[in-house]
């Protein structure tokens, strides 16, 4: 498909055009924090920010979502479906790692039985990705075979010397492109070369990153018990506070809880993100099956690095975005786990 380009100064026009027909979500700074927020003319767009604080999964798998409602009238109860309406939307400026996270989530929510809440959001959303240019030491997407310079999605974008290059990859992307192509110019071979050059430069930077060569040796279905029974979990999990910051900033964590909210005249049933680090995760009448923080901690990483790949053709449930590395209150993270149990420490 054809590549387009547009000068960075004209981006607001592009945003405005896209926002005419649907909601447009971009990395926007609000209260000193950059997140995917709906765009408006006054928004402070931060395409330069490497990563949003929360991942982009919020748009497809929101932190809370209404499922149904039970209405009480006297002694009668009636059930009402009241899922939040989903309108078409555009998600602009997603990094390669976050784009990959949608694949991970798809494996979970689109497999049988299909999660129709997630599905309708996926169908209504167009993902416009954005290549990285200044990755940080916490980035390790390369370990999972992700190319930060060549992000997937419905449309890929590159920012090179004040020009945004725009390349539709899917039909959905092409359809959106047609609604805005009037604002853009078609890119030529020279432009193609510029993009390729920027990709090369990025690859050179990537190679210098300390976690570029993060070795995942040993994390596969074949070593499940060995990893599970490793004595190292005790030390690794020792300082874990049992908070959910890693889980909630993670683009691939997909656990949720279903809860009822009794508002006095009825009950709203909704689902919300849950964290396997929480003391009340999978709480049942008798208690929780994983009583200690060690077990909870181990579950999270075993799931991401062992169980998930062994059930999903080797696809890890981690995309190397590095958010948990910066957000963990005690700086314990998946990289430390991988290093402790994998690579040269494997076996």
């Amino acid at each position, binding site marked *: 498909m054809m590549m387009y380009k547009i000068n960075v100064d004209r981006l607001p026009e592009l945003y405005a055009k896209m926002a005419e027909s649907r909601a447009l979500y971009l990395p926007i700074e609000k209260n000193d924090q950059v997140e995917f927020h709906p765009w408006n003319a006054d928004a402070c767009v931060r395409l330069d920010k490497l990563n949003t604080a929360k991942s982009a999964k919020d748009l497809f798998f929101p932190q809370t979502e209404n499922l149904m409602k039970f209405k009480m009238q006297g002694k009668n109860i009636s059930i009402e479906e009241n899922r939040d309406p989903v309108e078409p939307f555009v998600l602009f400026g997603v990094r390669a790692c976050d784009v990959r996270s949608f694949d991970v989530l798809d494996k979970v929510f689109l497999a049988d039985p299909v999660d129709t809440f997630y599905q309708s959001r996926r169908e209504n959303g167009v993902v416009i990705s954005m290549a990285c240019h200044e990755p940080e030491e916490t980035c390790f997407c390369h370990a999972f075979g992700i190319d930060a310079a060549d992000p997937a999605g419905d449309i890929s974008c590159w920012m090179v010397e004040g020009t945004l290059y725009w390349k539709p990859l899917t039909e959905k992307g092409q359809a959106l492109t047609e609604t805005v192509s009037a604002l853009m110019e078609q890119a030529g071979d020279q432009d193609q070369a510029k993009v390729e050059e920027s990709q090369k430069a990025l690859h050179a930077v990537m190679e210098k990153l300390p976690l570029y060569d993060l070795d995942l040796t040993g994390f596969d279905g074949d070593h499940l018990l060995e990893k599970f029974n490793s004595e190292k979990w005790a030390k690794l999990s020792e300082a874990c506070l049992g908070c959910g910051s890693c889980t909630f900033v993670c683009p691939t964590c997909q656990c949720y809880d279903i809860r009822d909210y009794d508002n006095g005249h009825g009950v*709203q049933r909704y689902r919300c993100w849950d964290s396997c680090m929480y003391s009340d995760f999978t709480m049942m009448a008798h208690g929780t099956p994983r009583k200690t923080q060690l077990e909870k901690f181990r579950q999270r990483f075993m799931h991401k690095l062992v169980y998930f790949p062994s059930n999903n053709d080797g696809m890890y449930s981690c995309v190397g975005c590095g958010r948990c590395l910066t957000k963990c209150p005690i700086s314990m993270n998946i990289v430390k786990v991988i290093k402790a149990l994998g690579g040269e420490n494997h076996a």
Partner: protein
Amino acid sequence: MSLNEETKKEYKPLIVAFCCNWCSYAGADLAGSSRLTYPTDVKIIRVPCSCRVNPLFVLRAFQRGADGVIIAGCHPGDCHYTSGNYFARRRMTLLFSMLDYLGIERERTRVEWISAAEGVKFSTTMNEFAKTIHELGENKKLRDLRCEE
């Protein structure tokens, strides 16, 4: 007066009053037996002592749509349990100050010391408070939208 009353009739505020069993609840009883009226907006919840009022209850009331919350107890020094109201006084002072700090209208919360003999004070306090809440209007800042009908 009359004009205002017309317009105000449409809005019926909800006021939750936590009254300690020994003084203020009895004060409310005395207001009742003395036929001292106050608006039906005020609904009383009996607690053994003002110190039984957990900040959670105050927030819960606002969450569920209360427009004002008043806590009434024995006069300082007259607590049936000697010191309960002193603790309540500190707790509520800090809570109210915090709500104010969060930008919640400070007139929505009140603590009043009303003895069992002060039926008149009970009724005037409730009338005054109801009037204040009327003037303030609906509590919009501290409610849970999920509780709307």
